[in-house]
């Protein structure tokens, strides 16, 4: 690994994003609008205060996952990945460069979304706002890492789009949002425990209830472990040679 090449790659990815202002706009504006719909619909009830923090974590994860899968697929299809692999850059530099660039984008997204939720929609959280932002950013980096790992499976645009329902939806369903984990059949409970998204949702729900860092540190550790694991998987599945 070479920090200089990682930074160069992150700067390049950010340069590409900057040249596409519409994507940046969608990334930032759409989550705010959706959260606004919920705030409007459940006006006068505590739903926004309960659900809001959870969505602050979910939106970055889903959008970053999609953006990363498409970006890496494009990199494969236009031949730039083949070219990169013919230069001295390490595979880890490519993967970390992407994680760094989209991680920075996620920080912006999480800050804007949290600010809008609190100051515009009047969301009230019992726990610390900064901890919510922290978990949201970690979730976004997790989304990027999963996108990088998942793009090894996808060979076409159709497959890349399918990754989202395949990898994200089951996690959403078993993550404890629809049903508390204690009420699930044992096998599904195990499945839920093995999925990375569960820990993001768990800590955000804990924070919404007024928990502090002591209550979520285990879950945060699990998210970080999943990020490292997914980045490693993404690095290992990147091929230098065409079959």
């Amino acid at each position, binding site marked *: 690994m070479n920090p200089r090449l990682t930074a160069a790659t992150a700067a*390049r990815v950010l340069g590409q994003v900057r040249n596409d202002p519409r994507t940046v706009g969608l990334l930032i504006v759409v989550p705010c609008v959706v959260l606004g719909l919920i705030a409007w619909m459940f006006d006068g009830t505590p739903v926004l205060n309960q659900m809001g923090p959870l969505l602050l974590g979910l939106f970055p994860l889903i959008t970053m996952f999609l953006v990363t899968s498409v970006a890496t697929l494009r990199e494969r299809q236009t031949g730039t990945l083949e070219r*990169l692999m*013919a*230069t001295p850059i390490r595979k880890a530099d490519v993967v970390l460069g992407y994680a760094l660039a989209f991680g920075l984008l996620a920080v912006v997204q999480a800050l804007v979304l949290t600010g809008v939720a609190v100051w515009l929609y009047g969301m009230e959280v019992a726990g610390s706002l900064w901890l919510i932002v922290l978990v949201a950013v970690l979730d976004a980096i997790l989304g990027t890492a999963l996108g990088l790992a998942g793009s090894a499976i996808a060979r076409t645009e159709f497959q890349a789009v399918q990754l989202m329902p395949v990898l994200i939806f089951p996690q959403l369903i078993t993550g404890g949002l629809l049903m508390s984990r204690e009420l699930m059949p044992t096998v599904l409970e195990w499945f839920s425990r093995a999925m990375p998204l569960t820990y993001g949702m768990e800590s955000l729900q804990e924070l919404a209830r007024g928990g502090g860092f002591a209550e979520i540190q285990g879950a945060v550790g699990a998210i970080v472990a999943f990020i490292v694991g997914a980045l490693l998987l993404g690095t290992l599945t990147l091929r*230098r*040679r065409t079959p």
Partner: protein
Amino acid sequence: MTPRGDRNRGPEVLGENPARDYIPHMRNNDRPAIRAEGLRVVRGGARHGVVVIEGMDFEVPRGQVVGLLGPSGSGKTTLMRAVVGGQADVTGTLEVLGQPAGHPDLRRRVGYVTQAPSVYADLSIVANLRYFARLLGAEEVDVARALTDVDLARIAGRRVGVLSGGERSRASLAVALLGSPELLVLDEPTVELDPVLRRDLWALFRRLAERGATLLVSSHVMDEAQRCDRLMLMRQGRLLADAPLPELLERTGASDAEGVFLTLVESMAMEQKEVVR
């Protein structure tokens, strides 16, 4: 000695002397640029794949422009990818600049241009070049030189996405020139170019070779053959001929490269018929 970083001159026209800074760093000079023996490549996985190259033996001498000609599907791209180390399931001997193909040291010494222009469409030409320059450890002077070499200095700030096909493929070529590689592997670099640009690019290839670089250039346009020092004619994963054009013309009695190719294909078909009998 050629001064490096002489930036005080005005913008140059392609063809004057843009390659002045191109000094390939030479090592293992006595070995051929590429040496293959019993080369065999299977594509699509070693088990269920298709044999795309079967039993190729050849040597590419240093400092020459070698044309790799053949119809599409003859294995040119696969051979080039094997040379730059981007091809899986390569067996036999394949030595590049004295090292086995795909050796990490070669990533700085070999430049590769894929058939599809592989540059980022959402970045400007110069942003693309700066990124790859950082990866290769090249300097800003190299970026300026590469831009001049392919005659894109005037529109360097333009986004690749809005360029014409020819401009895009020249941007892709410029990336390969950044590190002043000893061996340049160019997969159909002149496709979609108008005759003037094609002539200018071949002149550039010639100048690079004069400075000591070796070029392996593929094409399916047979009339580009006369611009090469040596020709490798491929068909169905095999080498039909490997010699300078005049020698091939004499051997086959044909009047041009296309004639050479057709004569060789026919004589091969005749031989096969005789074997069947």
